[in-house]
């Protein structure tokens, strides 16, 4: 495909789309007055409804169904795919890793984000540090993986005196003569991959929590300080309870993101060296090994894991809104 044709498409496709809409709008507004309102509903809501139905509703149902079929979707095998997920010893790696990811990453990101939000609240010029810490959020997971490859890359010190990886170099400078090959270093390599996600999500936690802290009414903090609260007691007895709802939202939001993320693992290790996670296993089963049954069952597990988090989030926020 030539570049010219691609650029033509970029301009022509949206133009064609808008032109079609305008024509449809124009034709519809020429109809009799009593048709206008039902027609408006159909034209405004119809395209989105159809796309959502064939793009999300039907595929989700199909995935549920295929989870009960064999790998080329020709035979009903009941719960065997689910049995395979949870009883195959090899699968324990990605199940345990996924669990570790959704516990550790949100907690560390949120704790760091909260610390930063509190510290920033005491600073006069907070916008530059805020921007820089938030910046990783704009970078793709693939880009982040390549950035962190420079931190984790390793050369055998007995072969090459110079390290290209920052972490190896720092460890050698600190006196560790033979650092491990970080990415192959099981099971700790999992935590090193989590650091990348924490690096990305801390800025998110910080920005949201910082806004929540600033929204605490001044009289509440002042009253607490008049009563002698300061430092730790002000933080633990006033600040944290006041932003509890937001804290939960941040934790669960990051957990949801973590459950679905596969880019970091795919790019850094391809799921090898004991670093596999659920979302990447799902991708590998469906699109590399073409085991559709297993892939679908894994997608359903992902769905079932995400739902309670999202529901909890919504319930939590509703509760908070009804108090206000």
């Amino acid at each position, binding site marked *: *495909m030539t570049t010219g044709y*691609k650029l033509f498409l*970029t301009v022509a*496709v*949206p133009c064609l*789309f808008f032109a079609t*809409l305008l024509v449809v709008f124009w034709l519809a507004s020429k109809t009799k007055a009593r048709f206008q309102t039902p027609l408006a509903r159909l034209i*405004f*809501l119809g395209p*989105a*409804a159809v*796309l*959502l139905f*064939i*793009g*999300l509703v039907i*595929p989700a149902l199909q995935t549920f169904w295929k989870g009960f079929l064999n790998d080329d979707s020709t035979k009903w095998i009941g719960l065997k795919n689910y049995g395979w997920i949870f009883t195959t010893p090899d699968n324990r790696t990605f199940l345990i890793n996924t669990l570790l990811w959704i516990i550790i990453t949100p907690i560390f990101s949120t704790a*760091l984000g909260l610390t*930063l939000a509190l510290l920033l*609240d*005491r*600073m*006069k010029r907070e916008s530059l*540090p805020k921007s*820089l*810490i*938030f*910046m990783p959020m704009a*970078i*793709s*997971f*693939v*880009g982040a993986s390549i950035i962190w*490859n*420079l931190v984790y*890359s390793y050369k055998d010190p007995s072969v090459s005196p*110079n390290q*290209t990886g*920052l972490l190896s170099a720092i460890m050698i400078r600190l006196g560790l003569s033979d650092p491990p090959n970080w990415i192959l270093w099981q099971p700790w390599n999992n935590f090193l991959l989590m650091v990348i996600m924490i*690096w990305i999500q*801390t800025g998110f936690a910080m*920005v*949201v929590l910082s*806004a929540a802290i*600033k*929204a605490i009414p001044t009289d509440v903090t*002042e009253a607490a300080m008049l009563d002698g609260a300061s430092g730790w007691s002000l933080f633990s007895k006033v600040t944290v309870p006041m932003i509890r709802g937001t804290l939960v939202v941040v934790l669960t939001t990051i957990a949801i993101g973590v459950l679905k993320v*596969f*880019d970091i693992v795919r790019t850094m290790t*391809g799921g090898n060296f004991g670093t596999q996670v659920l979302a990447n296993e*799902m991708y590998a089963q469906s699109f590399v090994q073409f085991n559709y049954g297993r*892939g679908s069952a*894994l*997608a*359903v597990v992902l769905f079932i894991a*995400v*739902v309670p988090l999202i529901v909890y*989030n919504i319930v939590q926020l509703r509760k*908070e*809104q009804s108090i206000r």
Partner: protein
Amino acid sequence: MSVETGGLTAKLEEAVVAAPDHGGMSTALRRNLSSPWASALVIFITILWTIPTFGLLVTSLRPAADANSTGWWTAFTNPNFTLSNYSEVLNGGNTIPGGIAPYFINSFVISIPAALIPLTLALMAAYALAWVPFRYSTAVFLAIFALQVVPLQMALLPLLQMFNKGWTIGNIPIIPPIKDTPLHLLAASGGANFAPLWIAHTMFALPLAIFLLHNFISQLPKDLFEAARVDGASHFLIFRKLVLPLSVPAIASFAIFQFLWVWNDLLVGLTFAGGTADVAPITVYLSNIQGTYGAALHLTTAGAFIAILVPLAVFFALQRFFVRGLLAGSVKG
């Protein structure tokens, strides 16, 4: 209704947008609390957070021999910089045969329509749900809201099969494969087509887009719409002359969020583009060269920097909209 069902995203938006930068504590109180230790710690963490990205930029500017044998930090004691990595990674060279340039263009070709089309469709749906209500409009809105729960992973495989083979019940075709629809006219001579990517991104964007835009549009003053209706304006005219101009802040936030989401996406790109230079986005290329040429640090870093340049430019230029859109959309997918 939107307050009731506002949920997470509305809350986040409110938290960020509503809180003024220096509200909350009074100035005297702030000064009282500000300590040099807090500032020092923040500066330390900021530097720590920026170093990896900075290392990427420095490495990408070093000659191949230097970049692959010594750490990027030695470039300051022994400065030696070049732009040749960028020319090799853009156009291909000895190490990497195919360059990143076509993929970079592909990312634009994918992202721009994949931001504009769902935005428009969502704005239309949001207007209908908010201001042309019918008996089940609340139920429809809640159902769309609930669709955010479906992970992309669940929809990929069936959607891919639908694009390739169509969708039939028994022997009755319901949805034809893309090659039998007018959309195949968009394909290049080799058959490569961006349409599956645009359609998939549009579908996946809609639940969040409708939800966010509905929250915004439903808050617009009621009198405005009533007056326009009394004056005899059709819904189509109201949509163009009232809803569109009044929703610009929400449209900008969502457009930026969606553009970056598509630009940074790997999963949809991998599934629907097939990895060729014809349609695959830059993230797919990066992921592949990291797997194949990961040891060629000077090239992977240059490639990665080209890929993050666009989001970073958007981030620093449009931070206000970016933050709003990103926070509101952070639960997507």
